């Protein structure tokens, strides 16, 4: 996993609520057996017409928006557990998603992919969405070690919550799998002391 420390970029606004993982990456694209290449089908049915031509009104086809942060409505990533949704966002160049609420499985998958799920209040989200739509060049500065999102144009900084362990993993590019494999002796001891006979 790539390390994540700081990010200075612009945002791409997608002001819809309850964006589910079937929209992020439709099931028909889950037939790949590797992690790469999902980005080209990210938001496929919102992004392209049936003939493959881009829908100009969709944010990813709007040349005014170029940043690596997606700013999306409440309850982002609900539905299926497909980690392919996080892979698709990452593959398309996104490094963080800002929303006021994330579905649990998506949040975990994003953290395991190196994509930062950055939760702000409903009020801050609404302000960000409006401001980015008014000025697509509005700069956003994410600082993971200090857990802050700054909007320099506003001279304002917002702090965000993240689990301490997952923060260290992201900063250092560590995966849970490294940690768990190192627990082998404790896991084997646990298996031996279990009372189950069946």
């Amino acid at each position, binding site marked *: 996993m790539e390390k994540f420390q700081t990010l200075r970029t612009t945002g791409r606004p997608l*002001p*819809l*609520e*309850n964006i*589910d993982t*079937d*929209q992020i990456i*439709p*099931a*028909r694209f*889950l*037939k*790949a*057996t*590797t*992690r790469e290449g999902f980005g080209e089908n990210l938001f496929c*049915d919102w992004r392209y017409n*049936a003939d493959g031509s881009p829908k100009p009104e969709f944010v990813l086809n709007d040349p005014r928006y170029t940043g690596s942060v997606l700013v999306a*409505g*409440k*309850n982002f990533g*609900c*539905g*299926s*557990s*497909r*980690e*392919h949704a*996080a892979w698709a966002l990452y593959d398309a160049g996104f490094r963080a998603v800002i929303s006021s*609420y994330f*579905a*649990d*499985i998506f949040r*975990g*998958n994003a953290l*395991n*992919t190196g994509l930062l799920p950055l939760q702000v209040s*409903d009020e801050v989200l*609404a302000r960000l969405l409006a401001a980015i739509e008014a000025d697509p060049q509005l700069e956003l500065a994410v600082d993971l070690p200090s857990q802050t999102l700054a909007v320099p144009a506003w001279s304002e900084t917002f702090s965000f919550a993240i*689990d*301490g*362990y997952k923060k260290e993993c992201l900063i250092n590019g560590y*995966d*849970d*799998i490294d*940690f*768990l*494999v190192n*627990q*082998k002796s*404790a*896991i084997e001891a*646990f*298996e031996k002391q279990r*009372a*189950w*006979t*069946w």
Partner: protein
Amino acid sequence: MSRTLFDKIWDAHTVRSVEGLDVVYIDRHLIHEVTSPQAFDELAARNLPLFRPSQILATADHNVPTLHQDQPIREPLSRLQVEKLTENCEKYGIELYGLGHARQGIVHVIGPELGLTQPGMTIVCGDSHTSTHGAFGAVAFGIGTSQVAQVMASQCLLLSRPQRMRISVEGELRPGVTAKDLILYVIAQLGTGGATGHFVEYAGSAVRSLSMEGRMTICNMSIEMGARGGLIAPDATTFAYVEGRPFAPKGAAWHDAVAYWETLYSDADATFETEYTYQAADITPMITYGTNPGMGIPLTGHVPSEVPANEAESFDKSLKYMGFERGESLLGKQIDYVFIGSCTNSRIEDLRAVAAYVQGKQKAGHVEAIIVPGSKQVEQQAIAEGIDKIFAAAGFELREPGCSACLAMNEDKIPAGAYCVATSNRNFEGRQGPGSRTLLASPLVAAITAVQGRIVDITQYLN
């Protein structure tokens, strides 16, 4: 100290706790062709062995065809994915109930029917509907592919303990109201993110009186309100279902198991962060009108006319996609397809309910009605009971098992613009194929809709 059912199971599986996170031991790991290949690759890339192959069971379900399963899969990418699963299972010594196997089927149907799913267990799968297994009093939940690799490497996951929610439904369900209506009703009350961060225990007399199939339908849809999972305390109904199944404990071990399982309930004064109570008598047959499972109404109800201003854009986009208007009734709307299947409603009890209604009747001429059994065993049971002939006579097509048109990874797709009443779990845009319009409902509502050809108040049509 008083504990909830969830906490009793979680505590019994906590290997150790580190910085507020728990290393949670996993008893059963179910895998399928779609979310496992990258996990196997990760093991190989790190040169890690598979830690406990005997605790994994594999099946092919998500993208398999539901016709001609005896022949090679025609779609090349689907075939490759299924072949990859077979190769990986051979390489790592994992039991595989693949295509053509007498025990093949949807992963959340075969676990329970084989007795692999038992009370008190922790069960995971790279699929969000793993919550289904919670019907047995297990802590079961969906995981991403990175976590699939973690369980393969260590039989554990590093997790934060979710909050607890209890949803009680009291009283007796009305005629024509099923477990599916109950859960669609609850999700409509809480909304699609209403239980995020929580593990839900379903309780109350209406829940306790349900069969295991009904309980599975309820726990299955826990994720549709954002919950990490859902579970129901095991009881005599649970034990009777598990007993005698191939992987169930036998002899003395069975008695030891039941003695332990009988301790699995929430203590009387256990604390839940959130509690809701509903009355069964308030629930009527349900249907969804929008593009998430929280957008449900009684069949005889109306699409909401007012929504909060901040939700209006999403709400109207959803109605536009579905071709519905604010405030309108769905009664009388013509339906093009009926899909009976998925891990929510494809068990023998579901097929029996459909057969009992359609026997001696005929589907409407313009409706295409397909029934996809949840497993090979369900299919064989339906044939043994003669249900297949009832379906054929009524114009319903009985397919072979798989996830099918629930997520339309295989050829079973609903065309753009067409309306489908489905017994599955998600009505997201394009879920059943690009442009498809899904209305979620119970098997009974689906059967009656197929015969009438339009949305009706089913209470006027019960046998």
